[in-house]
């Protein structure tokens, strides 16, 4: 009779503990790999129905602390489309700067505090501080710099309040933009030292397999986080408004969170690696330099490389952020910018590239500006099915390589795969765990 072995990773689950990663191995065969997470956004969508459109941003951004800027821009884009409001050039640039700040903040936390310790053989960022004290200090400063970008544009470092339907309540002064630009530029050289460090690390290949990628086509010729159409690595392209037909959500027995696949049935990956796969050729300057150092043979199908893709995007965030400051400084200084509009019934879709991948918001408003329906599809929900697929392959490869591999090592390796997706699992919940 074959022996049965189960491996569970409860940290991935909700605080109640029903969930996480569950792997069942019978004999030498991986029988089951399940990942069950809580998809919090459904609750928020129901909360929004009947609310005035001006309340939407303040509620929906509570879906996430780290991605609140991305939810904000997606919300405002969708609402402005529903109301027929056109974004001015300055508003577009400022929202772009906000998204870059969010990317720097989120990626800095993920790459340096959550992923890099795994690759350097430490069990936490603070264990890493013993050998890399300056790097650990710089990593937090980088995250705080991302916060400062969001604070300057959005009015506070998280859950922006200065971002409004039609524009901004208050525009950053030229003096503040000059100071921010200087900080962004100053951080580039120390960051490139991290790129050199990462380029020397050998990335395991036990989760590598052919993958379909999806990302928005950038709105301009550059590498951007906003777009009007959805592209896949299969060569398909669809308008963002058709997201409901592109992202086919389905339920699975073991999870109360929906999974997603394309119409072809392929599961897919969204996030930094997908963006690099599709649009890496558009990078310039130091970001291109980082891309070529970390991906000398182009973007390979290996989810563990998503960490390095995020590192490239941090470089992009600093570099493009400084460029955007220059472009904003070239405009006449003003106190505020707000489009005039009339409330009307309508429907709009807003799509942005969040740190973890493509994020969709859709709202339908009635003639009074009240929300009739709301729909949010987060990147993590789209990545779930692909995460399970990569976890299964990783478990199989790791057990083929070493059938007696102990649970602790296997758990760590599987956690690295899940972590590489940078999943935003229980970001609505924040509790301390401990022994009573």
């Amino acid at each position: 009779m074959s022996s049965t072995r189960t491996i569970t990773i409860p940290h991935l689950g909700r605080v109640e503990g029903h969930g996480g990663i569950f792997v069942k191995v019978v004999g030498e065969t991986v029988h089951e790999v399940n990942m069950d997470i809580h998809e919090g956004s459904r609750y928020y969508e129901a909360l929004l129905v009947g609310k005035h459109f001006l309340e939407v941003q303040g509620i929906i951004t509570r879906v996430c602390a780290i991605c609140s800027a991305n939810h904000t821009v997606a919300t405002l884009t969708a609402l402005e489309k529903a109301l027929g409001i056109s974004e001015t050039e300055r508003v577009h640039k400022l929202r772009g700067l906000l998204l870059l700040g969010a990317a720097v903040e989120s990626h800095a936390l993920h790459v340096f505090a959550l992923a890099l310790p795994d690759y350097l053989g430490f069990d936490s960022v603070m264990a890493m501080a013993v050998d890399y004290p300056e790097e650990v200090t710089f990593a937090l400063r980088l995250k705080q710099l991302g916060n400062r970008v969001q604070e300057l544009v959005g009015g506070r470092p998280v859950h922006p309040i200065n971002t409004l339907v039609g524009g901004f309540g208050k525009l950053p002064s030229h003096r503040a933009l000059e100071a921010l630009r200087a900080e962004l530029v100053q951080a580039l050289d120390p960051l490139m030292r991290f790129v050199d460090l990462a380029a020397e690390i050998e990335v395991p290949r036990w989760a590598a397999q052919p993958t379909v990628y999806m990302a928005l086509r950038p709105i301009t010729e550059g590498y951007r986080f906003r777009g009007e159409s959805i592209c896949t690595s299969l060569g398909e392209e669809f308008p963002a408004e058709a997201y409901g037909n592109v992202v086919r959500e389905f339920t699975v027995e073991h999870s109360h969170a929906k999974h997603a696949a394309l119409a072809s049935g392929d599961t897919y990956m969204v996030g930094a690696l997908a963006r690099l796969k599709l649009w890496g050729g558009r990078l310039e300057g130091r970001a291109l330099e980082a891309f070529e150092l970390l991906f000398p043979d182009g973007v390979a199908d290996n989810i563990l490389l998503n960490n390095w893709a995020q590192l490239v995007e941090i470089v992009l965030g600093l570099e493009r952020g400084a460029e955007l400051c220059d472009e904003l400084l070239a405009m006449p200084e003003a106190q505020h910018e707000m489009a005039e509009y009339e409330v009307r019934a309508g429907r709009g879709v807003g799509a942005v590239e969040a740190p973890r991948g493509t994020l969709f918001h859709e709202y339908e408003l009635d003639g009074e500006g009240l929300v009739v329906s709301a729909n949010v599809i987060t990147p993590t929900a789209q990545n779930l099915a692909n995460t399970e697929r990569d976890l299964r392959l990783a478990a199989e490869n790791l057990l083929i390589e070493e059938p007696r591999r102990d649970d602790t090592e296997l758990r760590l390796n599987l956690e690295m795969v899940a972590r590489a997706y940078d999943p935003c699992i229980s970001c609505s919940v924040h509790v301390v765990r401990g022994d009573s």
Partner: protein
Amino acid sequence: MIPTLVVGFGNPLMGDDGVGAAVVTKLALISHQLPAAVGEAPSGLRLSTLADVLYLSSVWRGEARVWMVDAVVCGAAPGAVHRLGHEEVLENPQRHATVHHLSLAEGLRWIVHSCPAMAGVRFRLWGVEAESVDPVEALSPVVARAAETVAREIADRSRHPVRSPG
């Protein structure tokens, strides 16, 4: 009066996870103030709510003490209040809150390491055992009562600042 920042962690839209924010709101009411993202209470406490410990340095304004309130899951009865002093907070072994977030203790250790100005801050945590963190815009009754207790305890403690350094 020792300058003290009180931070309530958590999300008020997620049931008992919102206990930190609830305590801050109660402290503001005790001080006859409207709740605000960051407000000055007459007792000398500065109040803030945060979703993540790594934003702490964004709201810290040089206070010698940072008192925190957060939901806790460690197997005690719902509503039980865990009182952790400076060393106990920093030495909590939990690394990650999720794959996506550092734990409160790990985040604080990172801040103390990387922000020399905050190295001398004394931390204290009131952890309230959660009953449920489902998406509900209210605390469970037992946690609501605990929030009341913690708010009064913090207000009392702020009036007797010499009792302990932390």
